[in-house]
Structure formats: C-alpha cells, structure tokens
C-alpha cells in the first residue's frame, strides 16, 4: 500500500455526489483496494491517477479507504493472560485425552 496519509479538512468540500455515479467513478471505486495494494498494471494505475486528479470526490474517497485500511492494520488486540494460557492448555489436553 502506498505509504502516504492525506487528510481533507472541512475547507475542501466534495462536489455534489451525483458526479460520483458517473461510470468512470464506479470503475475506479471497483479497483481502489487493488490500487492501494499495488496490484494493478502501470497503465491502469496511470488511468486511475488521472481520474483522481480530475475528481476530488474519488480522491477523498480513496483517502478514506486508505485510512480505514491503516486503522485495521494497526488495531491492537488484547493479549492472553498467563492464567488463561495455562487454563486453556489444561482444558485442551483434558478434552484430547477424554476421546
């Protein structure tokens, strides 16, 4: 994923949403994850970049998707306590030997 964070403060408002329904916008929207994950060919990337430069809505949308992915990637998860780790092990071995 391209490592850049851009945010859009309230001063930059997207143009009316009807524009986003245009066929080009939908085509770009379909490929944004592949774009972020760097899975597209050079030609397609250029095509998308050109569209993004021309369409603030899609640019803002892409940034919000990038931010979403980064939040998922960095969301920590609570660790297993020592007590639970030992208890789980006992339960697993007990269940395994009961069969």
């Amino acid at each position, binding site marked *: 994923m391209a490592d850049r964070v851009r*945010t859009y403060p309230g001063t930059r408002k997207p143009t009316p949403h009807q524009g986003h329904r245009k066929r080009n916008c939908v085509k770009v929207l379909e490929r944004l994850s592949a774009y972020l*994950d760097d899975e597209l060919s050079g030609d397609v990337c250029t095509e998308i970049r050109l569209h993004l430069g021309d369409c603030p809505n899609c640019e803002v949308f892409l940034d*919000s998707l990038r931010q979403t992915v980064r939040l998922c990637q960095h969301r920590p998860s*609570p660790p297993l306590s020592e007590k639970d780790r030992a208890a789980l092990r006992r339960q697993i071995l007990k269940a395994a030997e009961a069969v």
Partner: protein
Amino acid sequence: MAARKHSESGSTDGHGASSPTARPFDQLYRDNVDVMYRFAYRLCGEAEAAKDLVQETFLNAYRAYDRFRGDSQVSTWLYAIASHACQRMRRKRKGEPERELSLTEFIPTSEGEFSLQIPMEGLSPHEALENKELRQILDRAIAKLPRKYRMVLVLRDMEGLSAKEVGGILGLNERAIKSRLHRARLFVRKELSGKGLTVDGHEDVTTRHR
C-alpha cells in the same frame, strides 16, 4: 515461522505431559497460542468466544497432528483449522447479516460520506486509535461484517497474510479473496464515514448521523 513438528523440547510439567503427543503439542501450543488468540479475538470480538475458538483450534490440531505434513507453515495450518472451526461453531452474533455485499451499496449517496468523520489529520493510525470511541466504532464495524468478509479482512489487513495465503486457508482463489477484501474494506469505510468524533473521544452531536 518454521514447522516444529518434531521438536521434543516441550515442557514436562502439568496435565498430559507424559503422553507421546503432549510434548510436541506443548511446543506447538507455546509457539502459536498468542497468535491464535489474537486471531480468534479479532474474529469473535470478545474474550470468551475467542478462548472457546482457541480451545477448539488446538484440540483439532492435537487430533490432526499426525496428518500435518509440514508442507505449509505451522501458523498457516493453524489459521486454517481456526477458520474452519469458526465457521462450524457458528456463534451467530446478534444482528449479524449473513449476506452478500454488493459494490453498489458502497457508492456514497451524500456529501458527508466521502470522507471519514474522524480526527486523523496529522495523526498516525496508532495515535488515532488512542481514541476509545474510534476503537469502538471500528470494532463494531468489523463485527457487523458478514462472517465470510470479516474472515478475509482479519486475515489480510489485521493478521497481515497475503491474498495467496488467505486463499489457501479458506480454500478460495486469490480473485475471490481480493473481491471479498475490497467489499469488506468498503463496508468498514462506510461505517466509519457516517460517524462523527471529536478529538477527545466524545461524539460530536453536531455531526450528521445516518
């Protein structure tokens, strides 16, 4: 991580340690339980269900141990067991829609939905996630995902596996994984875009809600 099937360095204390399978099992358990708990917690969204899933995963791994051929990484093998166990356990979440997500439902329909209404400007994702309410909104969005999409999002974006690895774990081709991942991300994005947060973690009542 290298496969440790034949390791004999497991502990000798505690229940079952004297059985032939227990010692390599202990090694397997010690080396992987933290990763599996993290994965289970992300799938289940809470501790008790996650512990049940970890137990089921290692129990199945224990039973299938002799059949593990070592041609994939141990962690990948365990991810696959856990994913299948999760699908079988079918702990249905309240309100979880088991449905197909279509791309058209993620096209914004009003101006407020293009951007995330959350304070991330100038913050790293790590710093942004110090906001408790943002964490809750993100967790809720992930929990609301239909299971098959959640599984792909968790494996790809949270556990950091490649599309190919996730395809191997779930028995799907890469194209299907990428398609599900994109829809899952769009779903979470949409959930975040409708929420208003202020910097101190309190909801901004002036922000429009869907």
